[in-house]
């Protein structure tokens, strides 16, 4: 009985925080404050939004009218398509957390993830209807698509900007400064990762050659 109640409660909570994501779309300041401080966001909903965003990105390739997007299929790698979002997101969260935690940022890693995902909601929300739109317009009306498509990105960017300010309790100037710093942190991480992987592969190659040499001589 309690198990069932708990399950119902969970579903109700999920619904509530999903609805709250839509509230955040139009009330970013208020919404993202409550997201962490009132604990109205949830990781489950953040994951949902992320998956839907990824889906929108993939479906875009296949279903957008060819007037707007021509895909050279031999060079499309679905893993890379997904990875290009997930990897950047992961780096963003880690980079942002690593920096802000040193400078009085109140947001925790999980909260940064949740807030960023909530901020991405405009993208699938606009891109899915655009899929249909892109198939019923001509080149003369292409501007509508272009404007809406860029609007989805701008809206998401603005939301993420406000979200970061709210969860870290930063003033806007400091917030923008840290967002720029985060981008640099991401670049540093990419550099270190590349360095790391090339070192590892060199190291592995070294031992392989030693073993080969040994096998050769013994």
């Amino acid at each position, binding site marked *: 009985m309690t198990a069932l109640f708990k399950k119902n409660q969970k579903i109700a909570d999920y619904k509530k925080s999903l609805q709250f994501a839509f509230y955040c779309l139009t009330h970013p300041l208020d919404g993202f404050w409550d997201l962490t401080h009132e604990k109205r966001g949830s990781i489950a909903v953040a994951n949902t939004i992320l998956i839907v965003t990824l889906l929108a990105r993939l479906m875009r390739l296949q279903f957008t009218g060819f007037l707007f997007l*021509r895909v*050279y299929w031999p060079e499309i790698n679905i893993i890379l398509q997904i990875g290009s979002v997930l990897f950047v997101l992961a780096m963003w969260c880690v980079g942002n957390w690593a920096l802000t935690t040193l400078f009085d940022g109140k947001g925790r890693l999980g909260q940064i993830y949740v807030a960023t995902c909530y901020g991405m909601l405009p993208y699938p929300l606009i891109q899915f209807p655009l899929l249909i739109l892109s198939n*019923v317009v001509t080149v003369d009306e292409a501007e509508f698509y272009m404007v809406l498509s860029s609007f989805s990105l701008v809206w998401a960017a603005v939301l993420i900007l406000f979200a970061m300010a709210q969860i870290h309790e930063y003033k806007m100037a400091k917030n923008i400064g840290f967002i720029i710093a985060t981008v640099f942190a991401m670049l540093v991480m990419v550099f270190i990762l590349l360095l790391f992987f090339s070192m590892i592969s060199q190291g592995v190659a070294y031992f392989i050659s030693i073993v080969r040499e040994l096998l050769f001589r013994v």
Partner: protein
Amino acid sequence: MKKRFLKTAVCMIAAGVLAVSGTGLTVRAEEGYTYSYDYWGDIQYSPDAYEVVGVYTSADLGLELPLKRPEGLFVKGNSIYVCDTGNNRILELQRTDKDTISYVRSIDGIRGDVEVKEFNSPTDVTITDDGYIYVADMNNCRILKLDMDGNYIMAFTKPTDATFNQEIDFLPAKIAVDTAGRVYCVAKNVNKGLVKFENDGVFSGFVGATPVTYNWTDYVWKKFASKTQRENMEKFTPTEYDNLYMDHEGFIYATITQANQDDIDSGDTDIVKKLNLMGSDILVRNGELYVIGDLYWGNGGGYDGPSLFTDVTAMENDIYFVLDKTRGRVFAYDDQGRMLYGFGGPGNEGGYFRRPVALDHMEHDLLVLDSQDNSITLFTPTQYGQLIFDAIEQFQDGFYDESGASWQEVMNQNNNYDLAYIGIGRSLLRQKKYQEAMDYFKLKYDDDNYSKAFKQYRKQWVEDHIGIIFAVVALLMIVPLAIGRIKRIRWEIDKADIFMNQK
């Protein structure tokens, strides 16, 4: 660029492997000669559009004195005029048969009242409809007008006008003459455009000068550079023309070879132009690719860099051919600036060139002059090439159904030919079969034509379904209204209850 290089490298390796393994050799060898590009710029080999009728050397033509570095070629009817530059003479040849070209006469000098009676490196010749021969007598610094017997009529010499740089010699290299007898000339070291003379020999200005452009990065660099650095930098000079051709409507096709590689690649410099009387470029460039010949310039066997067009010729159907001296190829473009096909290559075999310099056409046949090989190569369209011409000409003449059928034939022979799909689509569009046309355009990413078809299709669809659309719209309006009404009635009943209870 790197990607392109890789692709070419892979192609070459694949070709090499095939050649070594020797399987399917005959088919492969055929495939490499003629090709076109698809929407993505990938090479699609096609059946040959032109085949070699014959390669005519001095011996074949029966010349006592063999050709020496010939530079100019002009075709008038069945007559072929060749500028035998190294021997200072003009040769007249006649095509007497489908595959025979025979020697008619040689114009070795000028008769009549003129001081210098010999040619000195004549580089181009043109025959007008009213029966005059114009010769670009380069090292004598003059353009000669002769009658058909070689009698001197007049000469066009170095302009005395101040706009012409008086310090340099007037070296006319290539000429074209319009129906009114005005002469347009490509002169060496002149970068102001084509030199234009009135029919009485008076210099009347430059035509089609390329505007000098520079980008802002260069501008900023120059601001910071020292004086000597500035002098060493590339100068912003307009480009010189290399060759020209006057088409049947009097428009001048002109080519440029001295252009920056990056500018050619990015489409900043147009190396083929079609000039009108005002000297503005009116060449249509609706193709997905620039009019630059080869897209892949991978260094192979000493051949490197972009296609450099030494000559151009245009047929009556506005299809024009350009001759690439870098790799010895001929490229055909249609009136929309889309590449029909390219063929040829460097080599000694028939259909390959060593140093091609001039190109002209005799109806649908092509003639290419090779100045190192001292030979003329005669091409004639294959059945496949003829089908493409038919399809384009039928469309131009308004026979859309026939054009569609011809394109269908082309497609049967070459499934990878984008223009066939688009051609069929355009024909269907004219026949008001919009939905089918859309399918063809969509396959080959022709957005403009697709939009045209789709606009009509959408209009038709709306007209056909206007009843349903109205019904849906009405429903959308009525349903909320009705719901509101019901709610209101309910509310009034409730209110009435309360009112009654209170009473």
